[in-house]
Protein backbone atom coordinates (compact mmCIF):
# COMPACT_ATOMS: atom_id res chain seq x y z
CA UNK A 1 0.00 0.00 0.00
CA UNK A 2 2.85 2.30 0.91
CA UNK A 3 4.40 1.64 -2.47
CA UNK A 4 1.12 2.33 -4.19
CA UNK A 5 0.72 5.72 -2.56
CA UNK A 6 4.31 6.53 -3.28
CA UNK A 7 3.87 5.72 -6.93
CA UNK A 8 0.65 7.68 -7.13
CA UNK A 9 2.34 10.72 -5.65
CA UNK A 10 5.29 10.33 -7.94
CA UNK A 11 2.90 9.91 -10.81
CA UNK A 12 1.16 13.12 -9.78
CA UNK A 13 4.45 14.91 -9.85
CA UNK A 14 5.21 13.67 -13.35
CA UNK A 15 1.62 14.30 -14.18
CA UNK A 16 2.07 17.96 -13.43
CA UNK A 17 4.53 18.10 -16.31
CA UNK A 18 2.15 16.41 -18.66
CA UNK A 19 -0.74 18.48 -17.41
CA UNK A 20 0.94 21.76 -18.15
CA UNK A 21 1.84 20.51 -21.61
CA UNK A 22 -1.68 19.21 -22.16
CA UNK A 23 -3.01 22.60 -21.15
CA UNK A 24 -1.02 24.40 -23.78
CA UNK A 25 -2.06 21.79 -26.36
CA UNK A 26 -5.73 22.33 -25.62
CA UNK A 27 -5.21 26.07 -25.53
CA UNK A 28 -3.95 26.14 -29.05
CA UNK A 29 -6.57 23.66 -30.18
CA UNK A 30 -9.26 25.98 -28.90
CA UNK A 31 -7.61 28.88 -30.62
CA UNK A 32 -6.90 27.41 -34.02
CA UNK A 33 -8.84 24.15 -34.24
CA UNK A 34 -5.65 22.17 -34.87
CA UNK A 35 -3.18 20.23 -32.83
CA UNK A 36 0.17 21.96 -32.86
CA UNK A 37 2.72 19.22 -33.30
CA UNK A 38 5.56 21.65 -32.83
CA UNK A 39 4.30 22.79 -29.43
CA UNK A 40 7.00 20.88 -27.59
CA UNK A 41 9.76 22.28 -29.72
CA UNK A 42 8.49 25.79 -29.19
CA UNK A 43 8.54 25.19 -25.45
CA UNK A 44 12.07 23.82 -25.63
CA UNK A 45 13.21 26.82 -27.63
CA UNK A 46 11.72 29.12 -25.02
CA UNK A 47 13.50 27.23 -22.27
CA UNK A 48 16.79 27.55 -24.13
CA UNK A 49 16.32 31.28 -24.42
CA UNK A 50 15.70 31.35 -20.70
CA UNK A 51 18.85 29.37 -20.09
CA UNK A 52 20.82 31.80 -22.22
CA UNK A 53 19.47 34.77 -20.32
CA UNK A 54 20.44 33.16 -17.04
CA UNK A 55 23.89 32.40 -18.43
CA UNK A 56 24.19 36.10 -19.16
CA UNK A 57 23.40 36.88 -15.55
CA UNK A 58 19.70 37.73 -15.63
CA UNK A 59 17.87 37.17 -12.34
CA UNK A 60 15.35 34.31 -12.41
CA UNK A 61 12.05 36.20 -12.33
CA UNK A 62 13.20 38.79 -14.83
CA UNK A 63 14.18 35.94 -17.11
CA UNK A 64 10.80 34.27 -16.52
CA UNK A 65 8.82 37.32 -17.54
CA UNK A 66 11.09 37.98 -20.50
CA UNK A 67 10.67 34.43 -21.77
CA UNK A 68 6.90 34.63 -21.45
CA UNK A 69 6.80 37.86 -23.42
CA UNK A 70 9.27 36.66 -26.05
CA UNK A 71 7.36 33.40 -26.44
CA UNK A 72 4.13 35.33 -26.88
CA UNK A 73 5.68 37.44 -29.61
CA UNK A 74 7.30 34.41 -31.17
CA UNK A 75 3.99 32.59 -31.34
CA UNK A 76 2.34 35.49 -33.10
CA UNK A 77 5.28 35.76 -35.49
CA UNK A 78 5.09 32.08 -36.41
CA UNK A 79 1.40 32.41 -37.11
CA UNK A 80 1.74 35.49 -39.24
CA UNK A 81 4.76 34.28 -41.24
CA UNK A 82 4.06 30.59 -41.62
CA UNK A 83 0.43 29.78 -41.09
CA UNK A 84 -1.39 32.83 -42.30
CA UNK A 85 -0.27 32.30 -45.91
CA UNK A 86 -1.40 28.69 -45.62
CA UNK A 87 -4.76 29.29 -44.05
CA UNK A 88 -6.62 28.62 -47.26
CA UNK A 89 -4.53 25.62 -48.10
CA UNK A 90 -5.62 22.15 -47.21
CA UNK A 91 -5.29 20.70 -43.80
CA UNK A 92 -2.50 18.50 -45.11
CA UNK A 93 -0.39 21.43 -46.20
CA UNK A 94 -0.77 22.80 -42.73
CA UNK A 95 0.24 19.47 -41.27
CA UNK A 96 3.41 19.58 -43.33
CA UNK A 97 4.03 23.08 -42.01
CA UNK A 98 3.76 21.84 -38.43
CA UNK A 99 6.17 19.02 -39.09
CA UNK A 100 8.57 21.40 -40.82
CA UNK A 101 8.40 23.79 -37.87
CA UNK A 102 9.17 20.92 -35.52
CA UNK A 103 12.18 19.94 -37.57
CA UNK A 104 13.50 23.48 -37.89
CA UNK A 105 13.21 24.34 -34.21
CA UNK A 106 14.69 21.05 -33.05
CA UNK A 107 17.65 21.49 -35.36
CA UNK A 108 18.15 25.12 -34.36
CA UNK A 109 18.22 24.18 -30.69
CA UNK A 110 21.03 21.73 -31.28
CA UNK A 111 22.93 24.10 -33.51
CA UNK A 112 22.75 27.12 -31.23
CA UNK A 113 23.12 25.43 -27.89
CA UNK A 114 24.56 21.97 -28.71
CA UNK A 115 23.38 18.67 -27.37
CA UNK A 116 25.02 18.55 -23.96
CA UNK A 117 22.57 18.34 -21.13
CA UNK A 118 22.15 21.53 -19.17
CA UNK A 119 20.65 22.26 -15.81
CA UNK A 120 17.88 24.76 -15.43
CA UNK A 121 17.19 26.54 -12.17
CA UNK A 122 13.97 26.36 -10.24
CA UNK A 123 12.56 29.09 -8.01
CA UNK A 124 10.88 26.57 -5.77
CA UNK A 125 13.84 24.74 -4.34
CA UNK A 126 14.33 21.03 -4.47
CA UNK A 127 14.02 20.15 -0.82
CA UNK A 128 11.41 17.59 0.08
CA UNK A 129 8.17 19.24 0.93
CA UNK A 130 7.04 19.06 4.50
CA UNK A 131 9.87 16.67 5.16
CA UNK A 132 8.15 13.90 3.21
CA UNK A 133 10.02 12.17 0.43
CA UNK A 134 6.91 11.90 -1.71
CA UNK A 135 7.09 15.30 -3.32
CA UNK A 136 9.61 18.07 -3.43
CA UNK A 137 9.32 21.82 -3.54
CA UNK A 138 9.61 22.15 -7.28
CA UNK A 139 7.07 19.49 -8.05
CA UNK A 140 4.62 21.12 -5.70
CA UNK A 141 5.36 24.46 -7.26
CA UNK A 142 4.63 23.05 -10.67
CA UNK A 143 1.29 21.72 -9.60
CA UNK A 144 0.37 25.08 -8.14
CA UNK A 145 1.46 27.03 -11.21
CA UNK A 146 -0.42 24.68 -13.50
CA UNK A 147 -3.55 25.06 -11.40
CA UNK A 148 -3.23 28.84 -11.42
CA UNK A 149 -2.70 28.93 -15.19
CA UNK A 150 -5.72 26.75 -15.60
CA UNK A 151 -7.83 29.07 -13.49
CA UNK A 152 -6.71 32.09 -15.46
CA UNK A 153 -7.42 30.39 -18.78
CA UNK A 154 -10.82 29.28 -17.65
CA UNK A 155 -11.70 32.80 -16.60
CA UNK A 156 -10.39 34.13 -19.88
CA UNK A 157 -12.22 31.77 -22.15
CA UNK A 158 -15.50 31.43 -20.33
CA UNK A 159 -15.77 34.82 -18.72
CA UNK A 160 -14.47 37.39 -21.14
CA UNK A 161 -15.75 38.62 -24.48
CA UNK A 162 -12.33 38.26 -26.04
CA UNK A 163 -12.19 34.65 -24.94
CA UNK A 164 -15.61 34.00 -26.43
CA UNK A 165 -14.58 35.67 -29.66
CA UNK A 166 -11.48 33.49 -29.84
CA UNK A 167 -13.47 30.32 -29.29
CA UNK A 168 -15.92 31.38 -31.99
CA UNK A 169 -13.19 32.29 -34.44
CA UNK A 170 -11.57 28.90 -34.02
CA UNK A 171 -14.69 26.78 -34.27
CA UNK A 172 -16.47 28.64 -37.07
CA UNK A 173 -14.38 31.30 -38.82
CA UNK A 174 -16.99 32.19 -41.49
CA UNK A 175 -19.72 32.87 -38.99
CA UNK A 176 -17.21 34.69 -36.82
CA UNK A 177 -16.50 37.07 -39.67
CA UNK A 178 -20.22 37.61 -40.11
CA UNK A 179 -20.46 38.96 -36.59
CA UNK A 180 -17.49 41.23 -37.16
CA UNK A 181 -14.74 39.26 -35.43
CA UNK A 182 -11.30 39.80 -36.94
CA UNK A 183 -10.50 36.14 -37.28
CA UNK A 184 -6.90 36.65 -38.35
CA UNK A 185 -6.03 38.59 -35.19
CA UNK A 186 -7.82 36.03 -33.03
CA UNK A 187 -5.77 33.22 -34.51
CA UNK A 188 -2.56 35.15 -34.00
CA UNK A 189 -3.50 35.92 -30.41
CA UNK A 190 -4.28 32.27 -29.80
CA UNK A 191 -0.87 31.27 -31.03
CA UNK A 192 0.75 33.89 -28.86
CA UNK A 193 -1.01 32.71 -25.74
CA UNK A 194 -0.33 29.07 -26.46
CA UNK A 195 3.34 29.82 -27.06
CA UNK A 196 3.53 31.72 -23.79
CA UNK A 197 1.97 28.86 -21.86
CA UNK A 198 4.30 26.48 -23.64
CA UNK A 199 7.19 28.65 -22.54
CA UNK A 200 6.07 28.44 -18.92
CA UNK A 201 5.71 24.68 -19.24
CA UNK A 202 9.19 24.47 -20.70
CA UNK A 203 10.70 26.48 -17.86
CA UNK A 204 8.99 24.31 -15.29
CA UNK A 205 9.85 21.02 -16.94
CA UNK A 206 13.48 21.73 -17.73
CA UNK A 207 14.71 21.55 -14.11
CA UNK A 208 13.30 18.02 -13.83
CA UNK A 209 14.18 16.38 -17.14
CA UNK A 210 17.22 18.58 -17.84
CA UNK A 211 17.53 20.83 -20.79
CA UNK A 212 18.49 19.37 -24.14
CA UNK A 213 16.98 19.63 -27.63
CA UNK A 214 14.90 16.47 -27.41
CA UNK A 215 13.67 17.13 -23.89
CA UNK A 216 10.07 17.66 -24.83
CA UNK A 217 9.47 14.80 -27.17
CA UNK A 218 8.16 12.26 -24.71
CA UNK A 219 6.46 15.00 -22.72
CA UNK A 220 4.60 16.27 -25.75
CA UNK A 221 3.37 12.77 -26.46
CA UNK A 222 2.08 12.39 -22.95
CA UNK A 223 0.67 15.89 -23.17
CA UNK A 224 -1.29 14.97 -26.27
CA UNK A 225 -2.41 11.78 -24.65
CA UNK A 226 -3.58 13.64 -21.58
CA UNK A 227 -5.37 16.26 -23.65
CA UNK A 228 -7.14 13.67 -25.75
CA UNK A 229 -8.02 11.64 -22.70
CA UNK A 230 -9.50 14.60 -20.93
CA UNK A 231 -11.20 15.94 -24.02
CA UNK A 232 -9.65 18.35 -26.47
CA UNK A 233 -12.21 21.05 -25.85
CA UNK A 234 -11.82 21.09 -22.12
CA UNK A 235 -8.83 22.77 -20.46
CA UNK A 236 -9.78 21.32 -17.09
CA UNK A 237 -10.16 17.88 -18.61
CA UNK A 238 -6.76 18.20 -20.23
CA UNK A 239 -5.10 18.97 -16.92
CA UNK A 240 -6.82 16.06 -15.23
CA UNK A 241 -5.91 13.92 -18.21
CA UNK A 242 -2.28 14.91 -17.84
CA UNK A 243 -2.24 13.94 -14.19
CA UNK A 244 -4.02 10.70 -15.00
CA UNK A 245 -1.45 9.81 -17.62
CA UNK A 246 1.34 10.44 -15.15
CA UNK A 247 -0.22 8.19 -12.56
CA UNK A 248 -1.10 5.43 -15.04
CA UNK A 249 2.38 5.45 -16.46
CA UNK A 250 3.95 5.14 -13.05
CA UNK A 251 1.63 2.48 -11.72
CA UNK A 252 1.94 0.41 -14.86
CA UNK A 253 5.69 0.64 -14.75
CA UNK A 254 5.83 -0.40 -11.12
CA UNK A 255 3.18 -3.01 -10.74
CA UNK A 256 3.13 -4.82 -14.05
CA UNK A 257 6.48 -6.57 -13.80
CA UNK A 258 7.07 -7.15 -17.47
CA UNK A 259 6.69 -3.54 -18.45
CA UNK A 260 9.72 -1.91 -16.98
CA UNK A 261 10.97 1.34 -18.35
CA UNK A 262 10.73 0.65 -22.03
CA UNK A 263 7.07 -0.07 -22.41
CA UNK A 264 5.73 2.57 -20.04
CA UNK A 265 4.95 4.87 -22.89
CA UNK A 266 3.21 2.14 -24.84
CA UNK A 267 1.06 1.17 -21.90
CA UNK A 268 0.03 4.73 -21.27
CA UNK A 269 -1.02 5.05 -24.86
CA UNK A 270 -2.87 1.76 -24.78
CA UNK A 271 -4.87 2.96 -21.82
CA UNK A 272 -5.68 6.17 -23.66
CA UNK A 273 -6.93 4.22 -26.63
CA UNK A 274 -9.05 2.04 -24.38
CA UNK A 275 -10.68 5.08 -22.84
CA UNK A 276 -11.30 6.60 -26.26
CA UNK A 277 -13.13 3.44 -27.26
CA UNK A 278 -15.62 4.06 -24.54
CA UNK A 279 -15.78 7.82 -24.79
CA UNK A 280 -14.59 8.89 -28.23
CA UNK A 281 -14.53 12.56 -27.34
CA UNK A 282 -12.49 12.13 -24.19
CA UNK A 283 -13.73 11.94 -20.62
CA UNK A 284 -14.78 15.57 -20.35
CA UNK A 285 -14.94 16.46 -23.98
CA UNK A 286 -18.08 17.62 -25.62
CA UNK A 287 -18.55 16.13 -29.02
CA UNK A 288 -20.03 18.71 -31.35
CA UNK A 289 -23.54 17.63 -32.15
CA UNK A 290 -24.14 17.87 -35.84
CA UNK A 291 -27.36 17.37 -37.67
CA UNK A 292 -27.32 15.61 -41.01
Amino acid at each position, binding site marked *: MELFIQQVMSGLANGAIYASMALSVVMIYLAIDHLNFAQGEMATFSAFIGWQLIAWGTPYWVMFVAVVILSFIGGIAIERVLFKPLHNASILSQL*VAFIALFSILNSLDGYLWDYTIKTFPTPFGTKPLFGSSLIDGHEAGMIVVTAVLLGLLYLFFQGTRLGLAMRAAASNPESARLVGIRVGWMTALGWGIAAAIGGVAGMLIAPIVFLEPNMMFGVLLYGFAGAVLGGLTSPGGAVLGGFAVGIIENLAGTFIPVIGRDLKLTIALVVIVAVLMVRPAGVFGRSAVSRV
Partner: protein
Amino acid sequence: MTVPPQETAVFTAAGRAGVGQRTGSLSTRHLVLAGAIAVAVVLPFVFQGFVIFQFTLVMIYGLAILGLNLLTGFNGQFSVGHGAFYGLGAYVTAILMHRYGMPYYWTLLPAGGVCFVVGFLFGLPALRLQGLYLALVTFAAAVALPQLLKFHPLEGWTGGVQGIVVDQPDAPAFLPIDSDQWLYYFTLLVILIMFAGAASLVKSRTGRAIMAIRDHPIAATAMGINGPLYKTLIFGVSALYTGVAGALGALAVQFVAPDSFSLFLSISFLVGLILGGMGSLPGCLFGGLFVLYVPNIAAEVSRGLAGAIYGLIMLLVIFVMPSGAAGFARLLGTYVSRMRHR
Protein backbone atom coordinates in the same frame (compact mmCIF):
# COMPACT_ATOMS: atom_id res chain seq x y z
CA MET B 1 -10.16 15.68 -39.71
CA THR B 2 -10.83 13.59 -42.74
CA VAL B 3 -9.13 14.32 -45.98
CA PRO B 4 -11.03 16.98 -47.92
CA PRO B 5 -12.31 15.69 -51.25
CA GLN B 6 -10.66 18.38 -53.34
CA GLU B 7 -7.30 17.00 -52.28
CA THR B 8 -7.99 13.74 -54.00
CA ALA B 9 -9.19 14.92 -57.35
CA VAL B 10 -7.42 12.15 -59.17
CA PHE B 11 -9.20 9.38 -57.33
CA THR B 12 -12.69 10.10 -58.58
CA ALA B 13 -14.88 7.57 -60.28
CA ALA B 14 -15.55 9.91 -63.17
CA GLY B 15 -11.88 10.52 -63.77
CA ARG B 16 -11.09 6.86 -63.76
CA ALA B 17 -14.00 5.95 -65.98
CA GLY B 18 -12.68 8.31 -68.62
CA VAL B 19 -9.36 6.54 -68.77
CA GLY B 20 -10.77 3.04 -68.87
CA GLN B 21 -13.05 3.54 -71.82
CA ARG B 22 -10.49 4.04 -74.50
CA THR B 23 -10.06 0.49 -75.65
CA GLY B 24 -8.03 -0.09 -78.76
CA SER B 25 -6.54 3.37 -78.99
CA LEU B 26 -3.48 4.48 -77.09
CA SER B 27 -4.04 7.49 -74.86
CA THR B 28 -1.20 9.75 -73.76
CA ARG B 29 -1.35 8.20 -70.32
CA HIS B 30 -0.64 4.74 -71.69
CA LEU B 31 2.26 6.03 -73.75
CA VAL B 32 3.81 7.83 -70.81
CA LEU B 33 3.39 4.73 -68.67
CA ALA B 34 5.00 2.48 -71.28
CA GLY B 35 7.84 4.93 -71.65
CA ALA B 36 8.41 5.05 -67.93
CA ILE B 37 8.53 1.28 -67.67
CA ALA B 38 10.97 1.09 -70.58
CA VAL B 39 13.25 3.58 -68.83
CA ALA B 40 12.96 1.67 -65.58
CA VAL B 41 14.02 -1.57 -67.26
CA VAL B 42 17.08 0.00 -68.82
CA LEU B 43 18.28 1.96 -65.78
CA PRO B 44 20.33 -0.74 -64.02
CA PHE B 45 22.60 -1.01 -67.03
CA VAL B 46 23.28 2.69 -67.09
CA PHE B 47 24.13 3.16 -63.45
CA GLN B 48 26.29 1.30 -60.93
CA GLY B 49 25.73 -0.57 -57.72
CA PHE B 50 24.96 2.08 -55.15
CA VAL B 51 22.71 4.15 -57.41
CA ILE B 52 20.76 1.01 -58.36
CA PHE B 53 20.31 0.36 -54.66
CA GLN B 54 18.92 3.86 -54.25
CA PHE B 55 16.48 3.45 -57.14
CA THR B 56 15.33 0.20 -55.57
CA LEU B 57 14.69 2.06 -52.33
CA VAL B 58 12.77 4.78 -54.14
CA MET B 59 10.42 2.15 -55.52
CA ILE B 60 10.10 0.54 -52.12
CA TYR B 61 9.28 3.78 -50.39
CA GLY B 62 6.89 4.60 -53.20
CA LEU B 63 5.09 1.33 -52.53
CA ALA B 64 4.96 2.04 -48.82
CA ILE B 65 3.49 5.45 -49.54
CA LEU B 66 0.99 3.85 -51.92
CA GLY B 67 -0.21 1.78 -48.99
CA LEU B 68 -0.73 4.90 -46.94
CA ASN B 69 -2.39 6.55 -49.92
CA LEU B 70 -4.98 3.79 -50.15
CA LEU B 71 -6.00 4.44 -46.58
CA THR B 72 -5.69 8.20 -46.31
CA GLY B 73 -6.12 9.53 -49.85
CA PHE B 74 -8.61 6.98 -50.95
CA ASN B 75 -10.65 6.37 -47.85
CA GLY B 76 -9.97 9.48 -45.79
CA GLN B 77 -8.70 7.71 -42.67
CA PHE B 78 -5.69 9.36 -41.18
CA SER B 79 -2.62 7.38 -40.21
CA VAL B 80 0.60 8.68 -38.70
CA GLY B 81 1.77 5.17 -37.96
CA HIS B 82 2.45 3.37 -41.20
CA GLY B 83 6.11 3.02 -40.34
CA ALA B 84 4.93 0.35 -37.92
CA PHE B 85 3.48 -1.76 -40.73
CA TYR B 86 6.63 -1.24 -42.74
CA GLY B 87 8.68 -2.44 -39.82
CA LEU B 88 6.37 -5.35 -39.17
CA GLY B 89 6.68 -6.56 -42.77
CA ALA B 90 10.44 -6.18 -42.60
CA TYR B 91 10.69 -8.20 -39.42
CA VAL B 92 8.45 -10.98 -40.72
CA THR B 93 10.73 -11.38 -43.69
CA ALA B 94 13.85 -11.22 -41.57
CA ILE B 95 12.62 -13.74 -39.02
CA LEU B 96 11.32 -16.17 -41.63
CA MET B 97 14.57 -16.07 -43.54
CA HIS B 98 16.86 -16.10 -40.54
CA ARG B 99 15.15 -18.63 -38.31
CA TYR B 100 13.30 -20.79 -40.77
CA GLY B 101 15.40 -20.48 -43.90
CA MET B 102 12.44 -19.51 -46.05
CA PRO B 103 13.43 -18.29 -49.51
CA TYR B 104 13.11 -14.58 -49.83
CA TYR B 105 10.43 -14.52 -52.49
CA TRP B 106 8.00 -16.57 -50.41
CA THR B 107 8.38 -14.28 -47.42
CA LEU B 108 6.52 -11.51 -49.20
CA LEU B 109 3.28 -13.42 -48.85
CA PRO B 110 3.31 -13.90 -45.06
CA ALA B 111 4.69 -10.40 -44.62
CA GLY B 112 1.74 -9.03 -46.50
CA GLY B 113 -0.64 -11.43 -44.83
CA VAL B 114 0.43 -10.65 -41.28
CA CYS B 115 0.21 -6.94 -41.99
CA PHE B 116 -3.22 -7.36 -43.55
CA VAL B 117 -4.49 -9.08 -40.43
CA VAL B 118 -2.93 -6.54 -38.08
CA GLY B 119 -4.19 -3.68 -40.22
CA PHE B 120 -7.66 -5.14 -40.29
CA LEU B 121 -7.63 -5.54 -36.51
CA PHE B 122 -6.45 -1.95 -36.24
CA GLY B 123 -9.30 -0.89 -38.44
CA LEU B 124 -11.88 -2.29 -36.05
CA PRO B 125 -11.36 0.09 -33.12
CA ALA B 126 -10.53 2.79 -35.64
CA LEU B 127 -14.16 2.76 -36.70
CA ARG B 128 -15.06 4.52 -33.50
CA LEU B 129 -12.43 7.20 -33.81
CA GLN B 130 -12.55 10.31 -35.90
CA GLY B 131 -9.72 12.14 -37.54
CA LEU B 132 -7.55 13.52 -34.80
CA TYR B 133 -8.13 10.69 -32.43
CA LEU B 134 -7.31 8.08 -35.05
CA ALA B 135 -4.15 10.02 -35.82
CA LEU B 136 -3.16 9.80 -32.19
CA VAL B 137 -3.75 6.07 -32.03
CA THR B 138 -1.71 5.39 -35.15
CA PHE B 139 0.90 7.71 -33.71
CA ALA B 140 0.94 5.52 -30.63
CA ALA B 141 1.47 2.44 -32.78
CA ALA B 142 4.41 4.08 -34.51
CA VAL B 143 6.00 4.90 -31.18
CA ALA B 144 5.21 1.54 -29.68
CA LEU B 145 6.75 -0.65 -32.34
CA PRO B 146 10.42 0.10 -31.70
CA GLN B 147 9.83 -0.36 -27.99
CA LEU B 148 8.05 -3.64 -28.52
CA LEU B 149 10.85 -4.82 -30.76
CA LYS B 150 13.36 -4.13 -28.01
CA PHE B 151 11.15 -5.80 -25.45
CA HIS B 152 13.16 -8.28 -23.46
CA PRO B 153 10.94 -11.37 -23.49
CA LEU B 154 10.64 -11.12 -27.27
CA GLU B 155 14.34 -10.87 -27.89
CA GLY B 156 14.63 -14.48 -28.92
CA TRP B 157 12.50 -13.68 -31.91
CA THR B 158 13.39 -10.13 -32.68
CA GLY B 159 17.07 -10.10 -31.96
CA GLY B 160 16.53 -7.21 -29.56
CA VAL B 161 18.39 -3.98 -30.04
CA GLN B 162 20.91 -5.51 -32.40
CA GLY B 163 18.30 -6.64 -34.84
CA ILE B 164 18.65 -9.35 -37.45
CA VAL B 165 20.92 -9.58 -40.45
CA VAL B 166 19.25 -10.46 -43.72
CA ASP B 167 21.09 -12.11 -46.58
CA GLN B 168 20.85 -10.37 -49.88
CA PRO B 169 19.11 -12.54 -52.46
CA ASP B 170 21.37 -13.79 -55.24
CA ALA B 171 20.41 -13.42 -58.84
CA PRO B 172 19.29 -16.67 -60.45
CA ALA B 173 22.26 -18.46 -62.02
CA PHE B 174 21.00 -18.22 -65.59
CA LEU B 175 20.83 -14.42 -65.61
CA PRO B 176 24.03 -12.43 -66.28
CA ILE B 177 23.33 -9.73 -63.69
CA ASP B 178 24.58 -9.04 -60.20
CA SER B 179 22.51 -9.27 -57.02
CA ASP B 180 21.88 -5.51 -56.83
CA GLN B 181 20.43 -5.52 -60.31
CA TRP B 182 18.41 -8.63 -59.59
CA LEU B 183 16.89 -7.12 -56.50
CA TYR B 184 16.04 -4.02 -58.54
CA TYR B 185 14.16 -6.08 -61.13
CA PHE B 186 12.49 -8.19 -58.50
CA THR B 187 11.31 -5.06 -56.75
CA LEU B 188 10.23 -3.54 -60.07
CA LEU B 189 8.13 -6.59 -60.81
CA VAL B 190 6.46 -6.52 -57.40
CA ILE B 191 5.86 -2.79 -57.70
CA LEU B 192 4.26 -3.11 -61.09
CA ILE B 193 1.94 -5.86 -59.92
CA MET B 194 0.91 -4.00 -56.83
CA PHE B 195 0.44 -0.63 -58.49
CA ALA B 196 -1.67 -2.33 -61.15
CA GLY B 197 -3.68 -3.92 -58.37
CA ALA B 198 -4.24 -0.57 -56.73
CA ALA B 199 -5.27 1.03 -60.00
CA SER B 200 -7.81 -1.65 -60.70
CA LEU B 201 -9.15 -1.42 -57.15
CA VAL B 202 -9.70 2.30 -57.62
CA LYS B 203 -11.65 1.70 -60.82
CA SER B 204 -13.82 -1.04 -59.42
CA ARG B 205 -17.18 -0.85 -57.74
CA THR B 206 -15.52 -1.53 -54.42
CA GLY B 207 -13.22 1.36 -55.11
CA ARG B 208 -16.10 3.69 -55.77
CA ALA B 209 -17.77 2.57 -52.58
CA ILE B 210 -14.63 3.26 -50.63
CA MET B 211 -14.33 6.74 -52.07
CA ALA B 212 -17.98 7.39 -51.39
CA ILE B 213 -17.35 6.62 -47.74
CA ARG B 214 -14.54 9.18 -47.71
CA ASP B 215 -16.62 11.89 -49.35
CA HIS B 216 -19.89 11.49 -47.55
CA PRO B 217 -20.08 8.69 -45.06
CA ILE B 218 -23.69 9.21 -44.11
CA ALA B 219 -24.95 9.28 -47.67
CA ALA B 220 -22.86 6.22 -48.43
CA THR B 221 -24.42 4.28 -45.59
CA ALA B 222 -27.85 5.45 -46.65
CA MET B 223 -27.16 3.95 -50.07
CA GLY B 224 -26.46 0.60 -48.50
CA ILE B 225 -22.68 0.63 -48.53
CA ASN B 226 -21.30 -1.30 -45.61
CA GLY B 227 -19.06 1.39 -44.20
CA PRO B 228 -17.44 -0.53 -41.38
CA LEU B 229 -16.62 -3.50 -43.60
CA TYR B 230 -14.96 -1.42 -46.29
CA LYS B 231 -13.13 0.77 -43.82
CA THR B 232 -11.58 -2.15 -42.01
CA LEU B 233 -10.80 -3.97 -45.25
CA ILE B 234 -9.01 -0.99 -46.70
CA PHE B 235 -7.05 -0.63 -43.49
CA GLY B 236 -5.93 -4.20 -43.99
CA VAL B 237 -5.09 -3.70 -47.66
CA SER B 238 -3.22 -0.51 -46.88
CA ALA B 239 -1.19 -2.27 -44.21
CA LEU B 240 -0.54 -5.15 -46.61
CA TYR B 241 0.94 -2.82 -49.23
CA THR B 242 3.18 -1.05 -46.76
CA GLY B 243 4.13 -4.34 -45.18
CA VAL B 244 5.25 -5.82 -48.50
CA ALA B 245 7.29 -2.67 -49.03
CA GLY B 246 8.88 -3.27 -45.64
CA ALA B 247 9.71 -6.83 -46.61
CA LEU B 248 11.40 -5.62 -49.79
CA GLY B 249 13.14 -2.99 -47.70
CA ALA B 250 14.60 -5.64 -45.46
CA LEU B 251 15.99 -7.43 -48.50
CA ALA B 252 17.48 -4.24 -49.86
CA VAL B 253 19.07 -2.96 -46.68
CA GLN B 254 20.00 -6.48 -45.54
CA PHE B 255 19.35 -5.56 -41.95
CA VAL B 256 16.44 -4.92 -39.59
CA ALA B 257 16.72 -3.19 -36.24
CA PRO B 258 14.15 -1.54 -33.98
CA ASP B 259 15.45 1.97 -34.40
CA SER B 260 15.18 1.88 -38.17
CA PHE B 261 11.42 1.91 -37.85
CA SER B 262 10.89 4.92 -35.68
CA LEU B 263 8.26 7.60 -35.71
CA PHE B 264 10.44 9.54 -38.13
CA LEU B 265 9.77 6.89 -40.75
CA SER B 266 6.01 7.15 -40.31
CA ILE B 267 6.13 10.88 -40.56
CA SER B 268 8.37 10.68 -43.62
CA PHE B 269 5.82 8.51 -45.36
CA LEU B 270 3.05 10.95 -44.55
CA VAL B 271 5.07 13.92 -45.71
CA GLY B 272 6.04 12.01 -48.85
CA LEU B 273 2.39 11.26 -49.52
CA ILE B 274 1.30 14.84 -49.11
CA LEU B 275 4.13 16.25 -51.17
CA GLY B 276 3.60 13.66 -53.88
CA GLY B 277 -0.09 14.41 -54.01
CA MET B 278 -2.86 12.63 -52.18
CA GLY B 279 -4.82 10.24 -54.29
CA SER B 280 -2.23 10.06 -57.03
CA LEU B 281 -0.46 6.83 -57.94
CA PRO B 282 2.56 8.35 -59.67
CA GLY B 283 2.76 10.88 -56.87
CA CYS B 284 3.73 8.06 -54.54
CA LEU B 285 6.99 7.62 -56.42
CA PHE B 286 7.72 11.33 -56.10
CA GLY B 287 7.10 10.89 -52.41
CA GLY B 288 9.52 8.00 -52.39
CA LEU B 289 12.15 10.18 -54.03
CA PHE B 290 11.59 12.83 -51.39
CA VAL B 291 11.88 10.39 -48.50
CA LEU B 292 15.10 8.95 -49.81
CA TYR B 293 17.01 11.94 -51.09
CA VAL B 294 15.98 15.04 -49.22
CA PRO B 295 17.30 14.11 -45.78
CA ASN B 296 20.67 13.40 -47.42
CA ILE B 297 20.63 16.66 -49.34
CA ALA B 298 19.82 18.53 -46.17
CA ALA B 299 22.69 16.90 -44.32
CA GLU B 300 25.04 17.83 -47.13
CA VAL B 301 24.08 21.47 -47.07
CA SER B 302 24.78 21.75 -43.39
CA ARG B 303 25.59 18.97 -40.97
CA GLY B 304 24.50 20.86 -37.89
CA LEU B 305 21.37 22.33 -39.38
CA ALA B 306 20.27 19.29 -41.40
CA GLY B 307 16.87 19.21 -39.70
CA ALA B 308 16.30 22.89 -40.31
CA ILE B 309 17.18 22.57 -44.00
CA TYR B 310 14.89 19.56 -44.28
CA GLY B 311 12.09 21.58 -42.76
CA LEU B 312 12.73 24.53 -45.05
CA ILE B 313 12.68 22.31 -48.14
CA MET B 314 9.37 20.87 -47.00
CA LEU B 315 7.99 24.36 -46.62
CA LEU B 316 9.29 25.37 -50.02
CA VAL B 317 7.58 22.42 -51.68
CA ILE B 318 4.30 22.96 -49.92
CA PHE B 319 4.20 26.67 -50.73
CA VAL B 320 5.04 26.14 -54.38
CA MET B 321 3.01 23.00 -54.89
CA PRO B 322 0.10 23.01 -52.43
CA SER B 323 -1.53 19.97 -53.99
CA GLY B 324 1.71 18.08 -54.14
CA ALA B 325 3.69 17.13 -57.20
CA ALA B 326 0.69 15.43 -58.78
CA GLY B 327 -1.41 18.55 -58.41
CA PHE B 328 1.37 20.61 -59.93
CA ALA B 329 1.66 18.19 -62.84
CA ARG B 330 -2.07 18.44 -63.39
CA LEU B 331 -1.90 22.22 -63.45
CA LEU B 332 0.89 22.04 -66.00
CA GLY B 333 -1.17 19.63 -68.04
CA THR B 334 -4.18 21.93 -68.06
CA TYR B 335 -1.97 24.88 -68.95
CA VAL B 336 -0.35 22.98 -71.81
CA SER B 337 -3.65 21.77 -73.22
CA ARG B 338 -5.09 25.28 -72.99
CA MET B 339 -2.16 26.61 -74.98
CA ARG B 340 -2.72 23.90 -77.54
CA HIS B 341 -6.36 24.80 -78.00
CA ARG B 342 -5.77 28.50 -78.63
